Protein backbone atom coordinates (compact mmCIF):
# COMPACT_ATOMS: atom_id res chain seq x y z
CA UNK A 1 0.00 0.00 0.00
CA UNK A 2 1.14 3.61 -0.46
CA UNK A 3 2.99 4.92 2.56
CA UNK A 4 0.31 7.56 3.19
CA UNK A 5 -2.32 4.84 3.51
CA UNK A 6 -0.11 2.95 5.87
CA UNK A 7 0.20 5.98 8.12
CA UNK A 8 -3.53 6.55 7.98
CA UNK A 9 -4.19 2.93 8.88
CA UNK A 10 -1.76 3.18 11.74
CA UNK A 11 -3.38 6.34 13.05
CA UNK A 12 -6.75 4.65 12.85
CA UNK A 13 -5.49 1.64 14.73
CA UNK A 14 -4.19 3.94 17.43
CA UNK A 15 -6.95 6.39 17.96
CA UNK A 16 -10.18 5.05 16.57
CA UNK A 17 -12.51 3.94 19.27
CA UNK A 18 -13.53 0.31 18.86
CA UNK A 19 -16.89 0.01 17.14
CA UNK A 20 -17.79 -3.06 19.10
CA UNK A 21 -17.32 -4.02 22.73
CA UNK A 22 -14.25 -6.13 23.50
CA UNK A 23 -14.86 -9.84 23.36
CA UNK A 24 -13.98 -11.91 26.39
CA UNK A 25 -10.47 -10.75 27.11
CA UNK A 26 -9.74 -13.97 28.98
CA UNK A 27 -9.23 -15.66 25.61
CA UNK A 28 -6.13 -13.69 24.73
CA UNK A 29 -3.78 -13.79 27.69
CA UNK A 30 -3.65 -14.49 31.37
CA UNK A 31 -2.67 -11.01 32.45
CA UNK A 32 -3.77 -7.52 31.67
CA UNK A 33 -0.44 -6.83 30.00
CA UNK A 34 1.02 -8.79 27.13
CA UNK A 35 4.27 -8.52 25.25
CA UNK A 36 4.17 -8.02 21.49
CA UNK A 37 6.00 -10.86 19.76
CA UNK A 38 7.20 -8.40 17.13
CA UNK A 39 8.45 -5.22 18.80
CA UNK A 40 8.54 -6.75 22.31
CA UNK A 41 6.68 -3.76 23.70
CA UNK A 42 4.34 -4.28 26.61
CA UNK A 43 0.77 -3.77 25.51
CA UNK A 44 -2.53 -3.55 27.30
CA UNK A 45 -4.23 -6.83 26.47
CA UNK A 46 -7.53 -5.07 25.82
CA UNK A 47 -5.90 -2.84 23.20
CA UNK A 48 -4.41 -5.83 21.42
CA UNK A 49 -7.71 -7.63 21.49
CA UNK A 50 -9.66 -4.65 20.20
CA UNK A 51 -7.11 -4.33 17.41
CA UNK A 52 -7.88 -7.93 16.33
CA UNK A 53 -4.53 -9.10 17.65
CA UNK A 54 -2.57 -6.54 15.62
CA UNK A 55 0.08 -4.67 17.60
CA UNK A 56 -0.84 -0.95 17.60
CA UNK A 57 2.82 -0.11 17.67
CA UNK A 58 4.54 -2.33 15.09
CA UNK A 59 1.62 -3.88 13.19
CA UNK A 60 2.58 -7.43 14.08
CA UNK A 61 -0.33 -9.79 13.37
CA UNK A 62 -0.57 -12.18 16.31
CA UNK A 63 -2.23 -15.57 15.98
CA UNK A 64 -5.97 -15.63 16.61
CA UNK A 65 -8.03 -18.38 18.17
CA UNK A 66 -10.63 -20.09 16.02
CA UNK A 67 -13.43 -18.21 17.79
CA UNK A 68 -11.74 -14.85 17.33
CA UNK A 69 -11.20 -15.64 13.66
CA UNK A 70 -14.85 -16.55 13.17
CA UNK A 71 -15.91 -13.35 14.92
CA UNK A 72 -13.72 -11.18 12.73
CA UNK A 73 -14.71 -12.86 9.45
CA UNK A 74 -18.38 -13.78 9.75
CA UNK A 75 -21.51 -11.69 10.20
CA UNK A 76 -22.32 -11.61 13.93
CA UNK A 77 -24.09 -14.72 15.13
CA UNK A 78 -24.21 -16.30 11.68
CA UNK A 79 -21.72 -19.14 12.21
CA UNK A 80 -23.40 -22.53 12.38
CA UNK A 81 -20.90 -25.31 13.00
CA UNK A 82 -21.02 -28.52 10.97
CA UNK A 83 -19.31 -31.83 11.75
CA UNK A 84 -18.54 -30.68 15.28
CA UNK A 85 -19.02 -34.22 16.49
CA UNK A 86 -15.90 -35.65 14.82
CA UNK A 87 -13.14 -36.77 17.22
CA UNK A 88 -9.66 -38.07 16.52
CA UNK A 89 -8.76 -41.64 17.26
CA UNK A 90 -5.26 -42.86 18.01
CA UNK A 91 -4.89 -45.24 15.04
CA UNK A 92 -1.16 -45.82 15.50
CA UNK A 93 -1.30 -45.87 19.31
CA UNK A 94 1.53 -43.40 19.04
CA UNK A 95 3.62 -43.46 22.21
CA UNK A 96 6.91 -41.82 21.25
CA UNK A 97 7.25 -38.45 22.94
CA UNK A 98 3.98 -37.34 24.50
CA UNK A 99 1.39 -40.09 23.96
CA UNK A 100 -0.93 -38.88 21.19
CA UNK A 101 -4.16 -39.57 23.07
CA UNK A 102 -2.91 -37.36 25.93
CA UNK A 103 -1.82 -34.63 23.52
CA UNK A 104 -5.31 -34.49 22.03
CA UNK A 105 -6.94 -34.36 25.43
CA UNK A 106 -4.60 -31.59 26.60
CA UNK A 107 -5.26 -29.60 23.43
CA UNK A 108 -9.01 -30.00 23.89
CA UNK A 109 -8.76 -28.83 27.50
CA UNK A 110 -6.54 -25.86 26.62
CA UNK A 111 -8.57 -24.62 23.69
CA UNK A 112 -12.09 -25.80 24.39
CA UNK A 113 -12.11 -27.01 20.78
CA UNK A 114 -12.80 -30.55 19.58
CA UNK A 115 -10.03 -30.38 16.98
CA UNK A 116 -7.67 -27.99 15.19
CA UNK A 117 -10.28 -26.78 12.72
CA UNK A 118 -13.82 -25.43 13.04
CA UNK A 119 -16.03 -25.63 9.98
CA UNK A 120 -19.54 -24.42 9.42
CA UNK A 121 -22.05 -22.42 7.47
CA UNK A 122 -22.02 -18.65 7.89
CA UNK A 123 -22.78 -15.33 6.30
CA UNK A 124 -20.18 -12.82 5.18
CA UNK A 125 -21.63 -9.44 4.30
CA UNK A 126 -24.94 -11.22 3.95
CA UNK A 127 -23.53 -13.79 1.50
CA UNK A 128 -23.95 -17.44 2.46
CA UNK A 129 -20.57 -19.18 2.68
CA UNK A 130 -18.98 -22.31 4.06
CA UNK A 131 -16.17 -21.28 6.34
CA UNK A 132 -13.31 -23.12 8.05
CA UNK A 133 -10.84 -21.70 10.54
CA UNK A 134 -7.79 -23.39 12.01
CA UNK A 135 -6.41 -22.86 15.50
CA UNK A 136 -2.66 -23.17 15.87
CA UNK A 137 -2.90 -23.83 19.62
CA UNK A 138 -4.35 -27.26 18.89
CA UNK A 139 -1.23 -29.44 18.28
CA UNK A 140 0.11 -26.80 15.90
CA UNK A 141 -3.11 -27.05 13.87
CA UNK A 142 -1.60 -30.13 12.30
CA UNK A 143 -3.73 -32.13 9.87
CA UNK A 144 -4.76 -35.58 10.99
CA UNK A 145 -7.84 -37.58 10.07
CA UNK A 146 -10.37 -35.20 11.63
CA UNK A 147 -8.88 -32.03 10.19
CA UNK A 148 -8.66 -33.71 6.77
CA UNK A 149 -12.21 -35.00 7.03
CA UNK A 150 -13.71 -31.70 8.15
CA UNK A 151 -11.83 -29.79 5.44
CA UNK A 152 -12.93 -32.33 2.79
CA UNK A 153 -16.54 -32.13 3.99
CA UNK A 154 -16.34 -28.32 3.93
CA UNK A 155 -15.31 -28.51 0.25
CA UNK A 156 -18.15 -30.94 -0.44
CA UNK A 157 -20.69 -28.85 1.46
CA UNK A 158 -19.69 -25.75 -0.53
CA UNK A 159 -19.94 -27.81 -3.71
CA UNK A 160 -23.36 -29.31 -2.91
CA UNK A 161 -24.84 -25.97 -1.87
CA UNK A 162 -22.96 -24.01 -4.52
CA UNK A 163 -21.82 -21.39 -2.02
CA UNK A 164 -18.25 -20.07 -1.79
CA UNK A 165 -15.72 -21.59 0.60
CA UNK A 166 -13.52 -19.40 2.78
CA UNK A 167 -10.74 -21.05 4.77
CA UNK A 168 -8.56 -19.20 7.30
CA UNK A 169 -5.54 -21.45 7.47
CA UNK A 170 -2.72 -21.96 9.95
CA UNK A 171 -0.85 -25.21 10.36
CA UNK A 172 2.46 -26.79 11.14
CA UNK A 173 1.72 -29.45 8.51
CA UNK A 174 0.63 -33.06 8.54
CA UNK A 175 0.13 -34.62 11.99
CA UNK A 176 2.89 -37.18 12.28
CA UNK A 177 1.18 -39.03 15.14
CA UNK A 178 -1.32 -40.38 12.62
CA UNK A 179 1.40 -41.47 10.18
CA UNK A 180 0.34 -42.32 6.64
CA UNK A 181 -3.29 -41.59 7.44
CA UNK A 182 -2.21 -37.95 7.89
CA UNK A 183 -0.14 -37.86 4.72
CA UNK A 184 -3.11 -39.17 2.75
CA UNK A 185 -5.29 -36.33 4.08
CA UNK A 186 -3.25 -34.12 1.76
CA UNK A 187 -4.42 -36.12 -1.25
CA UNK A 188 -7.95 -36.31 0.13
CA UNK A 189 -8.33 -32.55 0.69
CA UNK A 190 -6.64 -31.78 -2.65
CA UNK A 191 -9.09 -34.10 -4.42
CA UNK A 192 -12.00 -32.34 -2.72
CA UNK A 193 -10.54 -28.94 -3.70
CA UNK A 194 -10.23 -30.13 -7.31
CA UNK A 195 -13.91 -31.09 -7.36
CA UNK A 196 -14.97 -27.69 -6.05
CA UNK A 197 -12.80 -25.99 -8.67
CA UNK A 198 -14.34 -28.16 -11.41
CA UNK A 199 -17.81 -27.24 -10.16
CA UNK A 200 -16.95 -23.56 -10.58
CA UNK A 201 -17.60 -22.60 -6.97
CA UNK A 202 -15.20 -19.98 -5.56
CA UNK A 203 -12.67 -20.86 -2.87
CA UNK A 204 -10.70 -18.14 -1.09
CA UNK A 205 -7.82 -19.13 1.18
CA UNK A 206 -6.51 -16.83 3.90
CA UNK A 207 -3.02 -17.93 4.87
CA UNK A 208 -2.11 -16.87 8.38
CA UNK A 209 0.96 -17.27 10.54
CA UNK A 210 2.25 -19.96 10.20
CA UNK A 211 1.10 -22.11 7.26
CA UNK A 212 3.64 -24.85 6.61
CA UNK A 213 4.29 -28.37 5.37
CA UNK A 214 1.58 -30.70 4.18
CA UNK A 215 -1.20 -28.15 4.51
CA UNK A 216 0.60 -25.63 2.28
CA UNK A 217 1.33 -28.51 -0.11
CA UNK A 218 -2.32 -29.47 -0.40
CA UNK A 219 -5.64 -27.64 -0.05
CA UNK A 220 -4.20 -24.31 1.20
CA UNK A 221 -2.57 -23.38 -2.11
CA UNK A 222 -5.30 -24.77 -4.39
CA UNK A 223 -7.54 -21.77 -3.83
CA UNK A 224 -8.90 -19.53 -6.60
CA UNK A 225 -7.53 -16.55 -4.70
CA UNK A 226 -4.84 -16.78 -2.03
CA UNK A 227 -4.79 -13.95 0.49
CA UNK A 228 -2.18 -13.79 3.24
CA UNK A 229 -1.84 -11.73 6.39
CA UNK A 230 1.20 -9.46 6.71
CA UNK A 231 4.27 -11.20 8.05
CA UNK A 232 2.70 -14.66 7.95
CA UNK A 233 5.28 -17.41 7.60
CA UNK A 234 4.28 -19.63 4.68
CA UNK A 235 6.26 -22.52 3.23
CA UNK A 236 6.79 -26.20 2.76
CA UNK A 237 10.01 -27.14 4.55
CA UNK A 238 10.65 -25.70 8.00
CA UNK A 239 13.16 -22.82 8.04
CA UNK A 240 15.63 -24.70 10.25
CA UNK A 241 15.69 -27.64 7.84
CA UNK A 242 16.26 -25.26 4.93
CA UNK A 243 19.09 -23.59 6.84
CA UNK A 244 20.73 -26.96 7.56
CA UNK A 245 20.33 -27.95 3.92
CA UNK A 246 21.89 -24.84 2.38
CA UNK A 247 24.43 -24.39 5.21
CA UNK A 248 24.10 -20.63 5.38
CA UNK A 249 21.89 -18.10 7.11
CA UNK A 250 18.46 -17.51 5.62
CA UNK A 251 17.82 -14.12 4.04
CA UNK A 252 15.62 -11.70 5.93
CA UNK A 253 11.96 -12.14 5.09
CA UNK A 254 12.39 -15.70 3.76
CA UNK A 255 9.07 -17.60 3.61
CA UNK A 256 7.04 -14.54 4.58
CA UNK A 257 3.81 -13.48 2.92
CA UNK A 258 5.59 -10.44 1.45
CA UNK A 259 8.41 -12.52 0.00
CA UNK A 260 5.98 -15.00 -1.55
CA UNK A 261 3.95 -12.12 -2.99
CA UNK A 262 7.16 -10.96 -4.65
CA UNK A 263 7.76 -14.43 -6.04
CA UNK A 264 4.27 -14.57 -7.50
CA UNK A 265 2.94 -17.31 -5.24
CA UNK A 266 0.04 -15.47 -3.62
CA UNK A 267 -2.50 -12.92 -4.82
CA UNK A 268 -2.67 -10.42 -2.00
CA UNK A 269 -1.26 -9.44 1.36
CA UNK A 270 -4.04 -7.82 3.38
CA UNK A 271 -3.97 -6.33 6.84
CA UNK A 272 -6.36 -7.91 9.27
CA UNK A 273 -8.35 -4.69 9.65
CA UNK A 274 -9.44 -4.84 6.00
CA UNK A 275 -9.39 -8.62 5.56
CA UNK A 276 -13.10 -9.24 5.95
CA UNK A 277 -14.04 -6.48 3.50
CA UNK A 278 -11.45 -7.71 0.99
CA UNK A 279 -12.72 -11.29 1.11
CA UNK A 280 -16.33 -10.15 0.74
CA UNK A 281 -15.29 -8.02 -2.23
CA UNK A 282 -13.61 -11.03 -3.84
CA UNK A 283 -16.63 -13.26 -3.26
CA UNK A 284 -19.04 -10.71 -4.68
CA UNK A 285 -16.88 -10.36 -7.76
CA UNK A 286 -16.31 -14.09 -8.32
CA UNK A 287 -19.98 -14.90 -7.73
CA UNK A 288 -21.06 -12.23 -10.23
CA UNK A 289 -19.39 -14.02 -13.14
CA UNK A 290 -22.17 -16.52 -13.66
CA UNK A 291 -24.98 -13.96 -13.57
Amino acid at each position, binding site marked *: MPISDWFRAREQRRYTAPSEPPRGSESLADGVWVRCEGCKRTLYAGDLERGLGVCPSCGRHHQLTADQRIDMLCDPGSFDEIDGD*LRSGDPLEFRSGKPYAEAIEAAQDNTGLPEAVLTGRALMGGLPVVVGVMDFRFIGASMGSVVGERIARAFESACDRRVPLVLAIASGGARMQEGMLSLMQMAKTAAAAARLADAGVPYVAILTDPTMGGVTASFATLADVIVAEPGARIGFAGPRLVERTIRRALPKGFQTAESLLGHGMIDLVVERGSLRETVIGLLVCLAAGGE
Partner: protein
Amino acid sequence: MSDVARRFVMEFERPLVDLEEKLESLKHLSVVEGAELAVEIAALEAEVDELRTTLYTSLTPWERVQISRHPERPHTDDYLADVFRDVIELHGDRLYGDDAAMFAGLASLGTRKVAVLGHRKGRNTTENVRYNFGSPHPEGFRKAERVMLLADRFGLPIVTFLDTAGAYPGLEDEDRGQAWAIASCLATLSRVRVPVVTVGIGEGGSGGALAIGFGDRLIMLENAYYSVISPEMCATILHKEPARAAEASGCLQLTAQDLERMGLADEVVPEPLGGAQRDPVTVMGAVGTAVARALDDLGALPADALIASRYERLRAIGEYSSE
Protein backbone atom coordinates in the same frame (compact mmCIF):
# COMPACT_ATOMS: atom_id res chain seq x y z
CA MET B 1 35.81 -63.28 0.08
CA SER B 2 36.10 -60.29 -2.21
CA ASP B 3 32.41 -60.53 -3.13
CA VAL B 4 31.39 -60.27 0.48
CA ALA B 5 33.84 -57.53 1.30
CA ARG B 6 32.84 -55.34 -1.63
CA ARG B 7 29.18 -55.51 -0.84
CA PHE B 8 27.50 -52.49 0.73
CA VAL B 9 26.84 -53.53 4.31
CA MET B 10 23.90 -52.23 6.31
CA GLU B 11 24.65 -51.87 10.02
CA PHE B 12 22.28 -54.64 11.12
CA GLU B 13 23.92 -57.08 8.69
CA ARG B 14 27.32 -56.77 10.37
CA PRO B 15 27.15 -59.97 12.50
CA LEU B 16 26.14 -61.98 9.42
CA VAL B 17 28.83 -60.44 7.24
CA ASP B 18 31.48 -61.17 9.91
CA LEU B 19 30.42 -64.80 9.97
CA GLU B 20 30.33 -65.02 6.18
CA GLU B 21 33.85 -63.62 6.04
CA LYS B 22 35.02 -66.21 8.56
CA LEU B 23 33.47 -68.95 6.44
CA GLU B 24 35.15 -67.61 3.31
CA SER B 25 38.56 -67.59 4.96
CA LEU B 26 38.08 -71.16 6.21
CA LYS B 27 37.21 -72.27 2.70
CA HIS B 28 40.23 -70.40 1.38
CA LEU B 29 42.43 -72.14 3.97
CA SER B 30 41.14 -75.58 3.03
CA VAL B 31 41.89 -74.99 -0.64
CA VAL B 32 45.30 -73.36 -0.26
CA GLU B 33 46.68 -75.33 2.68
CA GLY B 34 44.81 -78.54 1.94
CA ALA B 35 43.70 -78.55 5.53
CA GLU B 36 40.95 -81.00 6.51
CA LEU B 37 38.29 -78.52 7.50
CA ALA B 38 35.20 -80.07 5.92
CA VAL B 39 33.45 -80.57 9.26
CA GLU B 40 34.16 -77.04 10.50
CA ILE B 41 33.09 -75.55 7.17
CA ALA B 42 29.84 -77.49 7.14
CA ALA B 43 29.07 -76.39 10.70
CA LEU B 44 29.83 -72.78 9.93
CA GLU B 45 27.76 -72.90 6.74
CA ALA B 46 24.81 -74.14 8.74
CA GLU B 47 25.35 -71.35 11.25
CA VAL B 48 25.52 -68.73 8.49
CA ASP B 49 22.34 -70.05 6.90
CA GLU B 50 20.52 -69.98 10.17
CA LEU B 51 21.65 -66.48 11.05
CA ARG B 52 20.75 -65.24 7.56
CA THR B 53 17.25 -66.66 7.84
CA THR B 54 16.69 -65.31 11.34
CA LEU B 55 18.09 -61.90 10.48
CA TYR B 56 16.12 -61.37 7.29
CA THR B 57 12.84 -62.94 8.36
CA SER B 58 12.52 -60.85 11.51
CA LEU B 59 13.34 -57.43 10.06
CA THR B 60 12.45 -54.43 12.19
CA PRO B 61 10.86 -51.40 10.52
CA TRP B 62 14.15 -49.52 10.82
CA GLU B 63 16.03 -52.38 9.13
CA ARG B 64 13.52 -52.30 6.28
CA VAL B 65 14.08 -48.54 5.96
CA GLN B 66 17.80 -49.25 5.59
CA ILE B 67 17.12 -51.87 2.93
CA SER B 68 14.83 -49.43 1.10
CA ARG B 69 17.81 -47.06 0.89
CA HIS B 70 20.31 -49.69 -0.24
CA PRO B 71 22.34 -48.17 -3.08
CA GLU B 72 22.25 -51.37 -5.15
CA ARG B 73 18.49 -51.71 -4.93
CA PRO B 74 16.78 -51.45 -8.33
CA HIS B 75 15.87 -47.82 -9.00
CA THR B 76 13.43 -46.19 -11.44
CA ASP B 77 16.04 -46.28 -14.22
CA ASP B 78 16.44 -50.04 -13.75
CA TYR B 79 12.71 -50.61 -14.05
CA LEU B 80 12.65 -48.45 -17.17
CA ALA B 81 15.38 -50.59 -18.72
CA ASP B 82 14.04 -53.93 -17.57
CA VAL B 83 10.25 -53.78 -17.40
CA PHE B 84 9.44 -51.28 -20.16
CA ARG B 85 10.34 -51.00 -23.85
CA ASP B 86 10.48 -48.06 -26.29
CA VAL B 87 11.12 -45.60 -23.46
CA ILE B 88 10.98 -41.95 -24.54
CA GLU B 89 11.96 -39.53 -21.82
CA LEU B 90 10.16 -36.17 -21.87
CA HIS B 91 12.07 -33.25 -20.43
CA GLY B 92 11.20 -29.99 -18.74
CA ASP B 93 8.31 -28.28 -17.02
CA ARG B 94 7.84 -25.63 -19.79
CA LEU B 95 8.17 -23.01 -17.09
CA TYR B 96 11.72 -22.89 -15.81
CA GLY B 97 13.82 -26.02 -16.03
CA ASP B 98 14.30 -29.74 -16.31
CA ASP B 99 14.72 -31.62 -13.05
CA ALA B 100 16.66 -34.86 -13.45
CA ALA B 101 15.44 -36.07 -10.03
CA MET B 102 12.06 -36.77 -11.62
CA PHE B 103 11.73 -39.08 -14.60
CA ALA B 104 8.79 -38.43 -16.90
CA GLY B 105 8.16 -40.15 -20.18
CA LEU B 106 6.29 -42.56 -22.42
CA ALA B 107 6.92 -46.27 -22.76
CA SER B 108 5.49 -49.67 -23.69
CA LEU B 109 4.52 -52.17 -21.04
CA GLY B 110 3.76 -55.39 -22.86
CA THR B 111 1.36 -54.38 -25.62
CA ARG B 112 0.20 -51.30 -23.73
CA LYS B 113 1.42 -47.72 -24.11
CA VAL B 114 1.76 -45.89 -20.81
CA ALA B 115 3.14 -42.72 -19.23
CA VAL B 116 5.78 -43.30 -16.57
CA LEU B 117 6.79 -41.01 -13.70
CA GLY B 118 9.42 -41.83 -11.12
CA HIS B 119 11.88 -40.41 -8.63
CA ARG B 120 15.44 -41.10 -9.65
CA LYS B 121 18.35 -42.14 -7.52
CA GLY B 122 21.90 -42.72 -8.65
CA ARG B 123 24.45 -45.47 -8.05
CA ASN B 124 27.56 -43.30 -7.90
CA THR B 125 28.44 -39.78 -6.88
CA THR B 126 28.07 -38.31 -10.37
CA GLU B 127 24.59 -39.78 -10.77
CA ASN B 128 23.60 -38.88 -7.24
CA VAL B 129 24.53 -35.25 -7.77
CA ARG B 130 22.72 -35.22 -11.13
CA TYR B 131 19.60 -36.68 -9.54
CA ASN B 132 19.96 -34.51 -6.42
CA PHE B 133 19.90 -37.74 -4.37
CA GLY B 134 16.34 -38.35 -5.51
CA SER B 135 14.86 -35.14 -4.09
CA PRO B 136 12.94 -33.15 -6.70
CA HIS B 137 12.77 -29.39 -7.06
CA PRO B 138 9.45 -27.71 -7.95
CA GLU B 139 10.36 -28.17 -11.64
CA GLY B 140 10.32 -31.94 -11.16
CA PHE B 141 6.78 -31.90 -9.83
CA ARG B 142 5.65 -29.47 -12.51
CA LYS B 143 7.13 -31.73 -15.19
CA ALA B 144 5.35 -34.70 -13.61
CA GLU B 145 2.07 -32.80 -13.62
CA ARG B 146 2.57 -31.78 -17.25
CA VAL B 147 3.00 -35.41 -18.24
CA MET B 148 -0.02 -36.46 -16.11
CA LEU B 149 -2.10 -34.03 -18.17
CA LEU B 150 -0.53 -35.30 -21.39
CA ALA B 151 -1.44 -38.87 -20.42
CA ASP B 152 -4.96 -37.73 -19.54
CA ARG B 153 -5.38 -36.03 -22.91
CA PHE B 154 -4.28 -39.08 -24.88
CA GLY B 155 -5.80 -41.79 -22.71
CA LEU B 156 -2.53 -43.30 -21.52
CA PRO B 157 -2.50 -45.07 -18.15
CA ILE B 158 0.01 -43.63 -15.67
CA VAL B 159 2.54 -45.80 -13.84
CA THR B 160 4.57 -44.12 -11.07
CA PHE B 161 7.62 -45.27 -9.12
CA LEU B 162 8.26 -43.86 -5.66
CA ASP B 163 11.83 -43.57 -4.46
CA THR B 164 12.57 -40.33 -2.67
CA ALA B 165 13.55 -39.20 0.79
CA GLY B 166 11.34 -36.18 0.09
CA ALA B 167 11.02 -32.96 -1.88
CA TYR B 168 14.22 -30.91 -1.72
CA PRO B 169 14.13 -28.44 1.21
CA GLY B 170 16.21 -25.74 -0.45
CA LEU B 171 15.94 -21.97 -0.34
CA GLU B 172 15.12 -21.41 -4.02
CA ASP B 173 12.73 -24.36 -3.91
CA GLU B 174 10.65 -22.50 -1.34
CA ASP B 175 10.78 -19.28 -3.35
CA ARG B 176 9.69 -21.12 -6.48
CA GLY B 177 6.72 -22.69 -4.72
CA GLN B 178 7.62 -26.24 -3.75
CA ALA B 179 4.33 -26.52 -1.85
CA TRP B 180 2.35 -25.12 -4.79
CA ALA B 181 3.95 -27.60 -7.20
CA ILE B 182 3.14 -30.57 -4.96
CA ALA B 183 -0.43 -29.42 -4.25
CA SER B 184 -1.08 -29.01 -7.95
CA CYS B 185 0.17 -32.56 -8.64
CA LEU B 186 -2.22 -33.89 -5.98
CA ALA B 187 -5.21 -32.11 -7.49
CA THR B 188 -4.34 -33.25 -11.00
CA LEU B 189 -3.60 -36.83 -10.04
CA SER B 190 -6.98 -37.02 -8.31
CA ARG B 191 -8.86 -36.20 -11.49
CA VAL B 192 -6.97 -37.61 -14.48
CA ARG B 193 -9.38 -39.83 -16.41
CA VAL B 194 -6.88 -42.65 -16.90
CA PRO B 195 -5.81 -45.48 -14.58
CA VAL B 196 -3.03 -44.58 -12.14
CA VAL B 197 -0.89 -47.37 -10.67
CA THR B 198 1.74 -46.47 -8.09
CA VAL B 199 4.65 -48.67 -7.05
CA GLY B 200 6.66 -48.01 -3.89
CA ILE B 201 10.08 -49.35 -4.87
CA GLY B 202 12.24 -47.80 -2.15
CA GLU B 203 11.76 -44.67 -0.11
CA GLY B 204 8.38 -43.01 0.09
CA GLY B 205 9.27 -39.76 1.80
CA SER B 206 6.36 -37.49 2.64
CA GLY B 207 4.86 -34.93 0.24
CA GLY B 208 7.58 -35.43 -2.34
CA ALA B 209 6.50 -39.06 -2.72
CA LEU B 210 2.78 -38.34 -2.44
CA ALA B 211 2.90 -35.88 -5.35
CA ILE B 212 3.08 -38.92 -7.67
CA GLY B 213 2.16 -41.41 -4.98
CA PHE B 214 -1.54 -42.25 -5.01
CA GLY B 215 -4.10 -43.38 -7.52
CA ASP B 216 -6.18 -46.44 -8.25
CA ARG B 217 -3.71 -49.05 -7.00
CA LEU B 218 -0.77 -48.91 -4.61
CA ILE B 219 1.74 -51.73 -4.95
CA MET B 220 4.54 -51.83 -2.37
CA LEU B 221 7.76 -53.81 -2.48
CA GLU B 222 8.24 -55.85 0.66
CA ASN B 223 11.01 -53.59 1.99
CA ALA B 224 9.80 -50.26 0.65
CA TYR B 225 8.47 -47.69 3.09
CA TYR B 226 6.02 -44.80 2.78
CA SER B 227 5.82 -42.23 5.54
CA VAL B 228 4.42 -38.86 6.53
CA ILE B 229 7.89 -37.86 7.78
CA SER B 230 11.35 -39.40 7.70
CA PRO B 231 12.19 -41.45 10.81
CA GLU B 232 15.19 -39.19 11.45
CA MET B 233 13.12 -36.02 11.29
CA CYS B 234 10.42 -37.55 13.47
CA ALA B 235 13.03 -38.47 16.09
CA THR B 236 14.47 -34.96 15.90
CA ILE B 237 11.10 -33.34 16.48
CA LEU B 238 10.07 -35.65 19.32
CA HIS B 239 13.36 -36.17 21.11
CA LYS B 240 15.85 -33.78 19.48
CA GLU B 241 17.82 -36.95 18.70
CA PRO B 242 17.98 -38.17 15.10
CA ALA B 243 19.66 -41.30 16.48
CA ARG B 244 16.30 -42.45 17.79
CA ALA B 245 15.12 -43.01 14.21
CA ALA B 246 14.82 -46.75 14.82
CA GLU B 247 12.20 -46.14 17.50
CA ALA B 248 10.43 -43.57 15.32
CA SER B 249 10.30 -46.03 12.40
CA GLY B 250 8.30 -48.39 14.57
CA CYS B 251 5.91 -45.69 15.78
CA LEU B 252 5.20 -44.30 12.33
CA GLN B 253 3.94 -47.62 10.90
CA LEU B 254 5.58 -46.98 7.59
CA THR B 255 6.37 -50.45 6.25
CA ALA B 256 4.65 -52.10 3.29
CA GLN B 257 3.10 -54.56 5.73
CA ASP B 258 1.72 -51.69 7.87
CA LEU B 259 0.25 -50.03 4.79
CA GLU B 260 -1.40 -53.25 3.66
CA ARG B 261 -2.88 -53.77 7.11
CA MET B 262 -4.25 -50.21 7.14
CA GLY B 263 -5.82 -50.81 3.75
CA LEU B 264 -3.64 -48.24 2.00
CA ALA B 265 -1.58 -50.70 -0.07
CA ASP B 266 -3.34 -53.16 -2.36
CA GLU B 267 -0.48 -55.56 -2.86
CA VAL B 268 2.95 -56.31 -1.42
CA VAL B 269 5.50 -57.75 -3.85
CA PRO B 270 7.90 -60.12 -2.07
CA GLU B 271 11.65 -59.59 -2.18
CA PRO B 272 14.37 -62.23 -1.87
CA LEU B 273 15.90 -62.75 1.55
CA GLY B 274 17.97 -59.66 2.34
CA GLY B 275 16.35 -57.34 -0.18
CA ALA B 276 15.65 -56.63 -3.85
CA GLN B 277 19.34 -55.97 -4.55
CA ARG B 278 20.01 -59.72 -4.12
CA ASP B 279 17.94 -60.57 -7.21
CA PRO B 280 16.83 -57.43 -9.04
CA VAL B 281 15.68 -59.20 -12.21
CA THR B 282 13.17 -61.41 -10.40
CA VAL B 283 11.85 -58.51 -8.34
CA MET B 284 11.49 -56.23 -11.36
CA GLY B 285 9.73 -59.01 -13.25
CA ALA B 286 7.26 -59.45 -10.40
CA VAL B 287 6.63 -55.69 -10.32
CA GLY B 288 6.02 -55.64 -14.08
CA THR B 289 3.51 -58.48 -13.74
CA ALA B 290 1.72 -56.80 -10.82
CA VAL B 291 1.47 -53.48 -12.69
CA ALA B 292 0.17 -55.15 -15.86
CA ARG B 293 -2.42 -57.06 -13.83
CA ALA B 294 -3.58 -53.87 -12.09
CA LEU B 295 -3.87 -52.09 -15.44
CA ASP B 296 -5.90 -55.01 -16.83
CA ASP B 297 -8.33 -54.71 -13.91
CA LEU B 298 -8.61 -50.94 -14.13
CA GLY B 299 -8.87 -50.87 -17.92
CA ALA B 300 -12.29 -52.49 -17.67
CA LEU B 301 -13.71 -49.45 -15.83
CA PRO B 302 -15.24 -46.50 -17.69
CA ALA B 303 -13.43 -43.23 -16.92
CA ASP B 304 -16.30 -41.81 -14.83
CA ALA B 305 -16.40 -44.89 -12.64
CA LEU B 306 -12.61 -44.84 -12.38
CA ILE B 307 -12.34 -41.30 -11.04
CA ALA B 308 -15.39 -41.80 -8.81
CA SER B 309 -13.79 -44.85 -7.24
CA ARG B 310 -10.45 -43.05 -6.88
CA TYR B 311 -12.23 -40.26 -5.02
CA GLU B 312 -14.06 -42.72 -2.78
CA ARG B 313 -10.75 -44.47 -2.08
CA LEU B 314 -9.26 -41.20 -0.84
CA ARG B 315 -12.38 -40.12 1.03
CA ALA B 316 -12.41 -43.34 3.02
CA ILE B 317 -8.92 -42.73 4.45
CA GLY B 318 -8.81 -41.57 8.04
CA GLU B 319 -9.78 -42.78 11.47
CA TYR B 320 -12.19 -40.80 13.62
CA SER B 321 -15.36 -41.17 15.60
CA SER B 322 -18.60 -39.20 15.81
CA GLU B 323 -19.71 -38.39 19.31
